[in-house]
C-alpha cells in the first residue's frame, strides 16, 4: 500500500520567470528518460526480482523516483502558473497551452506523449537491471543537458540535487547486480557439481550396478 507525505523531498519555491525552462523540464516529466519512466520501470520490475534485497531496493528507488516526479511537476507548475499568455507564446508553449492550458501533462519537451514502450521487462533479472542502469545513466545525461540550459541558479541547484540522487541509484543497482551475479554463479556451480556426481555412477559400472546404486540410494533416502 502507498501513503503520502505532505512535503517535497527537496524544497521548490521558484521566483524566476524562465518560462522556456518549463518546456524543457517536461523532458523529465513525461519524456522517454523521465522520472515517470524511472518510477514505473522500478515499480514494474520488482515482482520478478530473485531475492528480498533486490525487491527492497527497487521498491525504495521507485518511491524516491515518484518523489522526484513530484519535484519536477512542482517546478513546471510554478513556472507555468505565473506566466502570462504572451510569456507562454514567447517561451514556445502556445501549442501546449491550446491543449492543456496551464495544467501538467505527461509529454516530453517536444510534445510527444509518454508511452509504455519507453520501458521494458524480460523476467531475466540481469537484463532488467542492466536496463534500469541504462535508464539511470540516460536520466543523468538529461539532467546534465537541463543544467546547461537553465539560467536560474535555484533551478540549477534543484536539478543538480536530482542528478546526484540518480547517480546514487546507479551505484546501488550496480552493486546489486554484482552480488546477484555472484549468487547466480555459485548456484550454477553447485548445480553442476551435483549433476556431475549423479552422472558419474551409471557411467562407471554396468546397468546392474547402477540399478543397485539407485536402489541403495532410495533405501537410504
Amino acid at each position, binding site marked *: 500500500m502507498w501513503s503520502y507525505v505532505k512535503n517535497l523531498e527537496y524544497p521548490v519555491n521558484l521566483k524566476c520567470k524562465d518560462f522556456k525552462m518549463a518546456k524543457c523540464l517536461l523532458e523529465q516529466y513525461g519524456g522517454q528518460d523521465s522520472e515517470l519512466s524511472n518510477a514505473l520501470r522500478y515499480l514494474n520490475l520488482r515482482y520478478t526480482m530473485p531475492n528480498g534485497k533486490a525487491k527492497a531496493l527497487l521498491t525504495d528507488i521507485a518511491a524516491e523516483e515518484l518523489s522526484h516526479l513530484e519535484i519536477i511537476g512542482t517546478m513546471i507548475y510554478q513556472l507555468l502558473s505565473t506566466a502570462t499568455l504572451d510569456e507562454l507564446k514567447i517561451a514556445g508553449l502556445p501549442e501546449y497551452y491550446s491543449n492543456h492550458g496551464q495544467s501538467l501533462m505527461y509529454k516530453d519537451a517536444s510534445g510527444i506523449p509518454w508511452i509504455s514502450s519507453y520501458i521494458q521487462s524480460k523476467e531475466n533479472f540481469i537484463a532488467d537491471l542492466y536496463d534500469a542502469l541504462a535508464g539511470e545513466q540516460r536520466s543523468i545525461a538529461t539532467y546534465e543537458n537541463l543544467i546547461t540550459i537553465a539560467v536560474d541558479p535555484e533551478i540549477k541547484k534543484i536539478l543538480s540535487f536530482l542528478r546526484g540522487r540518480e547517480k*546514487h541509484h546507479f551505484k546501488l543497482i550496480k552493486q546489486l547486480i554484482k552480488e546477484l551475479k555472484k549468487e547466480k554463479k555459485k548456484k550454477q556451480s553447485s548445480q553442476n557439481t551435483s549433476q556431475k556426481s549423479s552422472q558419474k555412477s551409471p557411467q562407471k559400472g554396468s546397468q546392474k550396478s547402477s540399478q543397485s546404486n539407485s536402489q541403495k540410494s532410495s533405501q537410504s533416502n
Partner: protein
Amino acid sequence: MNKDDLLDKIQLTQLDALKLNMHLDVFPNDKRSKDEFEKLSYELDCLLSEYQNNFGPLSNFGLSYIENPVLWTSDPWPWDNEQEQ
C-alpha cells in the same frame, strides 16, 4: 521551532534517513549505518510528532500523529508556491 523551520528540519532528516535506508537495502549488515539509521528514525519520529501536533497532519490514511481533516485539506500543498499565500 516555527512551522517552516520544523518542516525544513523534517525534510533534511527524511533525506538522510532515505539515503541510509537505500544503503542498508544493499548492505544490511553495515553496523554503523544501522545504528545511524535507528537514531535518525527516532529523531524523525520526534520531529513529525512535534510538527503534526502543532500544525496538522503530514500523512494520509491514518498514519499521522493527529488527524485533522480540515487542516489536511486547507493547509498549502507542497507544490503551492510560498509567494501565493
